[in-house]
């Protein structure tokens, strides 16, 4: 049933039963334990069934786009770290890609490899902790989250030794990356890549077959492929609905056409599929990592002709997009030839994926709302910007 029809039916029921006394209106958030930051849902309940859900966001608005328009091209990079603060590497990459398109900057081979490696590591830690958070929302008292964080810690340590910061990496630059990685670093990354499947097995042992998890997630928050495409959903959420759309395959940005990996697809589009797709994607990411680490060449890490400071691209516009862990992360830039972009626009996957929240939640239980929200994978820093 399409969301519009559901809504109409529920509203009719609502008016037939009389609103006072029977329907409960609760405000979940912005200070609610499961809203992943400062997010609010105005929920109307009939018993425990959701008859209306209004997402309210903007509590974390930090004027990101306007700040970036007032800053130089270089100075915007640290701000992109803070969009989706779990995946600063991919955010950097998306922005760097847009600027490279705008100014026509080539990227050296080695830098491309490093970008792939760090981006896939980011994907691993993002997906692992997301599943932890999802289970936390389901009430698993933090155990999966702690396991995910244990692994994430290793990846963050790796990031720290490379870039100096654990989360706000500020690593990629248009034309390459900021610092080179040592061979020890690559070895450490190799260690993580080869031990990660072991962690995934452990994780699946704990979760995948669990009857409670299956009962809580299967058939919950189903999103049809049609609605997903129409609403512009991207990332694992779209693929869980069965649409084969992965920018790493579609755009083949960077050097992704050199690696062999598969794109897992779900058939039901429910929370369980979203969970499983992320697990399977992690396994594919490990494959990419193995290939990239084996093939990384020596060479420069940044295009020597690029002026980082005072870059003045020719007037024009460019849209750079990558497959972030949460979906299509795009940066749209218009240059008027000055040192700062005339227009800077982010396409935040979290926020666009959030738009179908009500459609997925209508007619379901309050407990499902929490789980569905958890499965969307949002970071409010990116949603509100």
């Amino acid at each position, binding site marked *: 049933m399409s969301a519009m029809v559901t809504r109409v039916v529920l509203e009719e029921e609502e008016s037939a039963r*009389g609103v*006072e*006394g*029977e329907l409960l209106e609760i405000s979940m958030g912005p200070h609610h334990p499961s809203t992943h930051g400062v997010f609010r849902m105005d929920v109307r309940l009939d018993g425990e069934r959701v008859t209306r859900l209004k997402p309210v966001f903007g509590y974390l608005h930090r004027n990101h786009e306007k700040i970036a328009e007032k800053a130089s091209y270089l100075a915007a990079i640290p701000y992109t770290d803070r969009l989706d603060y779990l995946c600063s590497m991919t955010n950097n990459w998306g922005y760097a890609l847009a600027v490279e398109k705008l100014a026509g900057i080539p990227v050296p081979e080695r830098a491309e490899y490093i970008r792939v490696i760090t981006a896939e590591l980011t994907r691993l830690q993002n997906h692992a902790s997301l599943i932890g958070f999802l289970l936390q929302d389901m009430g698993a008292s933090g155990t999966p989250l702690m396991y995910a964080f244990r692994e994430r810690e290793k990846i963050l340590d790796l990031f720290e030794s490379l870039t100096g910061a654990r989360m706000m990496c500020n690593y990629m630059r248009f034309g390459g990356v900021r610092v080179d990685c040592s061979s020890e670093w690559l070895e450490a990354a190799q260690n993580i890549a080869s031990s990660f499947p072991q962690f995934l097995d452990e994780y699946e042992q704990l979760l995948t077959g669990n009857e409670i998890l299956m009962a809580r997630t299967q058939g919950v928050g189903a999103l049809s492929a049609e609605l997903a495409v129409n609403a512009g959903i991207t990332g694992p959420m779209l693929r869980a609905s069965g649409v084969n759309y992965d920018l790493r395959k579609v755009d083949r940005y960077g050097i992704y056409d050199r690696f062999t990996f598969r794109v897992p697809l779900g058939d039901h589009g429910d929370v369980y599929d979203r969970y499983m797709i992320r697990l399977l994607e992690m396994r594919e990411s490990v494959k990419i990592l193995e290939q990239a680490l084996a093939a990384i060449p020596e060479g420069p890490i940044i295009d020597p002709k690029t002026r980082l400071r005072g870059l003045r691209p020719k007037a024009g516009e460019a849209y750079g997009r990558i497959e972030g862990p949460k979906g299509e992360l795009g940066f749209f830039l218009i240059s008027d030839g000055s040192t700062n972009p005339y227009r800077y626009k982010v396409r935040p996957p979290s926020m666009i994926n959030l738009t179908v929240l009500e459609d997925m939640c209508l007619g379901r239980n309050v407990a499902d709302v929490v789980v569905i929200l958890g499965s969307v994978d949002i970071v409010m820093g990116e949603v509100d910007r």
Partner: protein
Amino acid sequence: MSLSFLILALLTLGGAVAAMTLHRLVHCVLALTVALAGLAGLYLNLGAQFVGLAQILVYVGAVAILIVFAVLLTRGAEIASQMDSSRQGRFSALAGGVATAAAVFAVLAWVVLHSPTLSAPAATMTQVAPQAAMQQIGDALMRRYVLPLEVMGLMLTAALIGAVILALEEKPEAQ
């Protein structure tokens, strides 16, 4: 008459009065549970252990909760009745009800106090609490009262099904 009896009787009657006079429905139900718990205490005081405990289990644990649920499910009515301020004819109805109840109590009390059998000297009454072991109750239920027990089971089943059907949400008819 012992002190414990007096306390329990006061608790029961106080609870009952509160249950019938308080304004908010939930308070009434809570007062009712006090009265019923007091009654259970009276049963225990009188030596009827099984009945006293069953009283708590059934009344406090089930009936009170059931009533509470009914109160919550009909919340709309309470809101409406609070807004309803028409008091015409209420006084006479109130007075009539109280008068009837008082009359009934007067008659009953008169009978109790003037009954020849009841006013017999206390010595003829059983002074030692009669024994009612679980074993005996079980025996009685399974032997002498087995038919009533079966009927009771049947009735409870019927009541269960009936209540479920009555309270079942009516499906909107297909159009």
